[in-house]
């Protein structure tokens, strides 16, 4: 692989020796943190790595990182919050059932699911539970109010945990996997088993189908202004326009970062129209939407797996990433 030096940021990447499949990564305060599939939570500190095992010997299945904490759900059926100083507390215990999905809101609410069973815990620690019509695959809080979106077979549901009312249902036949809502709360989008995205405009439940992917879409990221949704699953990052009231309907998506390798992770910069793109061959590029300029972050290395986690810090100066084979790194923009 050859890249002109002036377009490369590779010299600004600090490698992190992680050694296990990286499930998710992010920042707690200024500190990079990685959740590993084997059960470790690793904080990257000035003087080295601090490794903890909040779930003991059990593996971590799902993780969610907020500015002040990392939440993990494990094979032991526990949901655990770890703070930057390493303190942990148990938010839930599903008695050995796998935690299938986990999310948190900006205001401190947490939700998780095991099978059809969903638990929502508000910022005061008040617990509400609900049974979904079938196994819950994805969870996402809507940006406004205490409202949870969850995906399952044949659609998704929107639930106010503090209300007795039945959840509102969004129907579309098939198996819906991950779920995400737009930052303005106008749209909900799911990824589906058949390598497509499905969206609903919440004002009138109008359906939106976004298809043409060669693989499942397991990573979605909204731009900071909410106008764009970037997605993995193809050999280019596919970016759908959501600015207009009809969302992407009738409009072609933008594409960037075309390479002969599938994209596994996408992460929009927190305050610029720049997309970080991670590939199945562990290459990483930054792509600027306005002029499609590309910057190389990481050259693919054989045997280091695919990029499985990718996240910016809140200032947009640092980017942390990890792979399925235990490679990881931290980019600090010059």
């Amino acid at each position, binding site marked *: 692989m050859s890249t002109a030096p002036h377009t490369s940021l590779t010299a600004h990447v600090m490698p992190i020796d992680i050694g*296990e*499949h990286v*499930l998710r990564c992010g920042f707690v305060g200024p500190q990079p943190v990685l959740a590993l*599939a*084997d059960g470790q939570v690793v904080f990257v500190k000035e003087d080295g790595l601090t490794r903890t095992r909040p779930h003991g010997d059990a*593996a971590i*299945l799902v993780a969610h990182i907020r500015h002040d904490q990392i939440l993990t759900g494990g*094979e032991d059926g526990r949901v655990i919050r770890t703070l930057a100083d390493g303190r942990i507390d148990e938010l839930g215990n599903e008695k*050995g*059932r*796998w935690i*299938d999905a986990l999310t948190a809101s900006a205001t401190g609410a947490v939700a998780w699911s095991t*099978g*059809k069973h969903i638990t929502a815990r508000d910022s005061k620690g008040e617990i509400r539970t609900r049974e979904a019509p*079938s*196994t819950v*695959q994805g969870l996402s809080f809507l940006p406004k109010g205490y409202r949870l979106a969850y995906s399952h*077979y*044949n659609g998704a549901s929107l639930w106010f945990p503090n209300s007795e009312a039945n959840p509102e249902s969004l129907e579309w*036949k*098939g*198996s819906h996997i991950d779920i995400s809502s737009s930052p303005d709360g106008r749209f909900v989008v799911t990824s*589906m*088993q*058949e390598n497509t995205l499905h969206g609903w405009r919440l004002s009138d439940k109008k359906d939106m189908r976004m298809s043409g992917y060669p*693989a*499942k879409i397991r990573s979605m990221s909204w731009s900071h202004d909410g106008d764009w949704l970037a997605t993995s699953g193809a050999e280019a990052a596919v970016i759908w326009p959501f600015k207009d009231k009809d969302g992407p309907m009738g409009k072609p998506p933008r594409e960037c970062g075309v390479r002969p390798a599938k994209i596994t992770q996408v992460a929009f910069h927190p305050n610029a129209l720049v997309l970080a793109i991670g590939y199945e061959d562990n290459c990483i590029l930054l792509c600027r939407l306005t002029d499609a300029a590309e910057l190389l972050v990481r050259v693919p290395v054989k045997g280091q797996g695919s990029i499985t986690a990718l996240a910016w810090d809140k200032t947009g100066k640092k980017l942390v990433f990890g792979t*399925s084979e235990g490679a990881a790194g931290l980019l600090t923009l010059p």
Partner: protein
Amino acid sequence: MTEKIPVTVLTGYLGAGKTTLLNRILTEPHGKKFAVVVNEFGEVGIDNDLVVGADEEVFEMNNGCICCTVRGDLIRIIEGLMRRKGRFDGIIVETTGLADPAPVAQTFFVDQDVSEKTRLDAVITVVDAKWLGERLKDAPEARNQIAFADVIILNKIDLVSADELATVEAQIRAINPYATLHKTERSAVNLEAVLGRNAFDLDRILDIEPDFLEPGHHHHHSAEIGSIALTVPGDINPEKFMPWINEFTQTHGPDILRCKGILSFKNEPKRFVFQGVHMILDGDLQRDWKPDELRQSKMVFIGRKLDRAMIEKAVEATRA
């Protein structure tokens, strides 16, 4: 490229001895570790470190194929298991007594992520020698599980007489004369008989020979599920055969549980082999025909309401 993790599917009607077989697999001194997926989490007495509870939720794929059902929970569980490497050498999926094995099997062919990391090794069906006769009358699932099996463990033979055993064996063979059958007490069987079978590996399709216990017996059964075997001398024209088999499995997919074939294509030095589960077909050229080998084509279909005359006529029309 790393080796794919083999997955063994264990089916059988309630009380047939599935859990006994499972524990036998887990505790024999073979030095192998397994991840076990069970339907009833917390079920008594599964002797293993890594046991995962599943919901057995089946859904239809949106690909216009009504029999193309998969287990969504299994996709998620396998994704989770495969992230943490080196913990196990194989996966065993135990289904409920009432489960149809097809969605489990199809999951390993339909889902790209699952099929990249794992391979279906075989479907093992445990059958209760004493009660099978009754089950075949009242439980269509029991018939399905036998029809679908690669390996049948005919268990509890100590509870029946020699005559009863012969009858139950004939009943099994009437449904599925191709599975390997082992007669056991307390599910005692060599592990090689149930593990490492490669039953869905095209390279392992060596021959297709039915095993009918009593010659002639199978002609009289009136069971809804049965098998049809064909042998066609000489060569087949692939340009006629391939469209036919595709069309046939697409239109009759819901009724065809399994199919398998070794074909002699005209001017092709290699054997063409195929196998299928409902509408999902997999086929490829295999080894060369040996100089002393009779070039002929053999195929078998196991399923419901199969029309032998129609299939024979259609296959005959594809001869080169």
